[in-house]
């Protein structure tokens, strides 16, 4: 068995020690630094981040647009906004993006609608991801009866016709205030999104649980809580980030659909969905009532989708960006 000793001397030279060429880097680049470096090279993702920044700016400055134009979002201007036949006037110096069927400023309303879309989309996605992660981790890590219960709960939520249940909720509770309807919309969207989220996280946790580093932590005497927080959760961050970023556009579309049907965010607070819904009766003659909220909605969801894809590629460089089964 002398071969072992001979090899040892040789291998000690190769193994350990600073890498040849250049001084040793003392601090390693964290997975997130690496991901950020990859993300920056993804032009499409960076561009969509820029578009989203503009949309956020547009939304944040909504009161400013209202002050500049002198058109509060819920004020009607029948004299300047409508022509003598009562038809809305198109884009002009007075109404940059035209007026709607009641003579309200489409630009100002679209800016307030952007607020609703972004707030609902982001909050609902965050809520769903927090609940989904919690349920997924508990279900996957604790296992047993709790897992059976939570997994079945998630299956059932996924079997519910979400749009109908949302409508049912809205009609049985007849919420009329803007604030309450906003809260309910967020809760409904989060409720119907957490299950798909939780299921993926659960699968992830089940495979992480098999990893030897979890066993290693257990053999060190680490408590279950510590293992979940220190060993399991950090390994879910990439997946959770990607899923959340892809959940935002879904939530925005969900909100727009509910508002389009009149069961989302209540009037007079404008939302892109309700603008499309109200305008759908007259846009044969007033295209801007379709184009403005429609293009904004499309641009926002497209940018979020591209951003999500970019984040996924950056965090998981081996993944196939078009792979559907994941």
């Amino acid at each position, binding site marked *: *068995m002398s071969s072992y000793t001979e090899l040892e001397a040789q*291998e*000690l030279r190769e193994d350990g020690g*600073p890498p040849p060429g250049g001084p040793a880097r003392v601090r390693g680049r964290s997975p997130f630094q690496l991901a950020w470096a990859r993300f920056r090279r993804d032009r499409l993702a960076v561009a969509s981040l820029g578009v989203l920044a503009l949309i956020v700016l547009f939304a944040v400055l909504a009161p400013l647009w209202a002050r500049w134009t002198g058109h509060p979002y819920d004020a009607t201007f029948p004299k300047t906004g409508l022509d003598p036949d009562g038809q809305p006037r198109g884009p002009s110096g007075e109404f940059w993006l035209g007026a709607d069927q009641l003579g309200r400023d489409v630009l100002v309303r679209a800016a307030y609608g952007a607020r609703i879309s972004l707030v609902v989309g982001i909050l609902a996605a965050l809520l769903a991801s927090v609940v989904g992660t919690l349920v997924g981790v508990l279900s996957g890590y604790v296992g047993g009866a709790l897992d059976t219960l939570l997994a079945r709960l998630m299956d059932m939520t996924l079997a519910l016709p979400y749009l109908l249940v949302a409508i049912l909720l809205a009609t049985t509770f007849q919420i009329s205030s803007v604030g309450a309807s906003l809260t309910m919309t967020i809760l409904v969207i989060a409720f119907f999104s957490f299950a798909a989220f939780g299921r993926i996280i659960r699968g992830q946790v089940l495979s992480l649980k098999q990893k*030897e580093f979890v*066993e*290693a932590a257990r053999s*060190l005497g680490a408590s279950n809580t510590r293992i979940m927080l220190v*060993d399991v959760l950090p390994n879910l961050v990439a997946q959770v980030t990607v899923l959340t970023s892809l959940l935002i556009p879904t939530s925005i579309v969900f909100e727009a659909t509910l508002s389009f049907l009149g069961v989302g965010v209540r009037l007079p607070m404008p939302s892109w969905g309700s603008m499309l819904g109200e305008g759908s009766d007259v846009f044969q003659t007033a295209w801007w009532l379709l184009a403005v909220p429609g293009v904004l909605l499309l641009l926002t969801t497209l940018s979020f989708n591209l951003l999500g894809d970019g984040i996924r590629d950056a965090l998981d460089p081996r993944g196939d960006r078009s792979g559907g089964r994941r």
Partner: protein
Amino acid sequence: MSARRIEGEGEVLVSVEGVYKHFPIRQGIVFKKEVGRVHAVDGVDLRVRRGETLGIVGESGCGKSTLARCITGLHPVTSGRILFEGTDITGLPKSGLKAFRRDVQMIFQDPYGSLNPRRRVGSIIGDPFAVHATAAGAERKRRVQELMELVGLNPEHYNRFPAEFSGGQRQRIGVARALALRPKLIVCDEPVSALDVSIQAQVVNLLKDLQDEFGLTYVFIAHDLSLVRYVSDRVAVMYLGKVAEAAAVEDVYVRPRHPYTAALLSAASVSDPDAAERAERIVLTGDVPSPIQPPPGCRFHPRCPKAAGRCVEEDPPLIRRDGDAPGHVTACHFPVEPGESLAGREASIAQVSTQPDLPEVEQ
């Protein structure tokens, strides 16, 4: 390297007594009822003495990794006792278990899976100090860097991630983590089988050096026979959840008594080509049977070239056989005699292939 320790010497550190570990297989619509069990560990008795290395060999699926996880308390045993320094650890309350876990550490097989990819090396090696709250802050960092130096890692790499290290370096990280609390026993579960052969030597030698320096006790699990011979003082051969043969290392390698041991040794690669030419391969019939329904009697009888009627009915006890050195125990009714050749021998009973979906072996 450390002097060979002779059987019968030294204080018993771990005593495994009649340990069974079965994994239930459940099925059912509402109430899951047990439809079968995997007999992973099926009645094992072993002793590990302080300061020695006990090697455990066997094919994959023979239960050696499960046994390792029972000894470290990762798996609760189905029945039996495991005494560590005289205390039964199978029924320990939470607080006692935590203290036990300071004394027993494990080194894992997979240098990639056993280190959390999202944590820095310093945090991984410092984990034992954090869990047991023995050192914090600058003190923890100092001790982690000492450990890194001890196992041959550059202490400046404290802030790196596991992905930035090679397989051998990663296994050194695992060794450092296991060493952190100065344990009395380290269970090494195939610690080098995932590494390149050239790197294996370094890690094994590191483990031996550390044993000499700190008086560690090892349970060393592997399927590489020559590696086990190199590191172990005593060896136990496992087959289908049971110990087939156990003895001081040279006894097993020079004078194997169990036909299974003999077959394993004859199949092992021999570095000397002349010896390889002389050696006769003992070819076993069939495959390892399913541990869900292990064969009755001696577990090895469906594949054993010496099997006879008695082997089907009676499970041979693990005892010292005639003419063997003290501490050499074999579970076989018809142990291999010195000079006896098993190659080409056929059993005196009909043997059914245990490979699923295959016709009977033609006799």
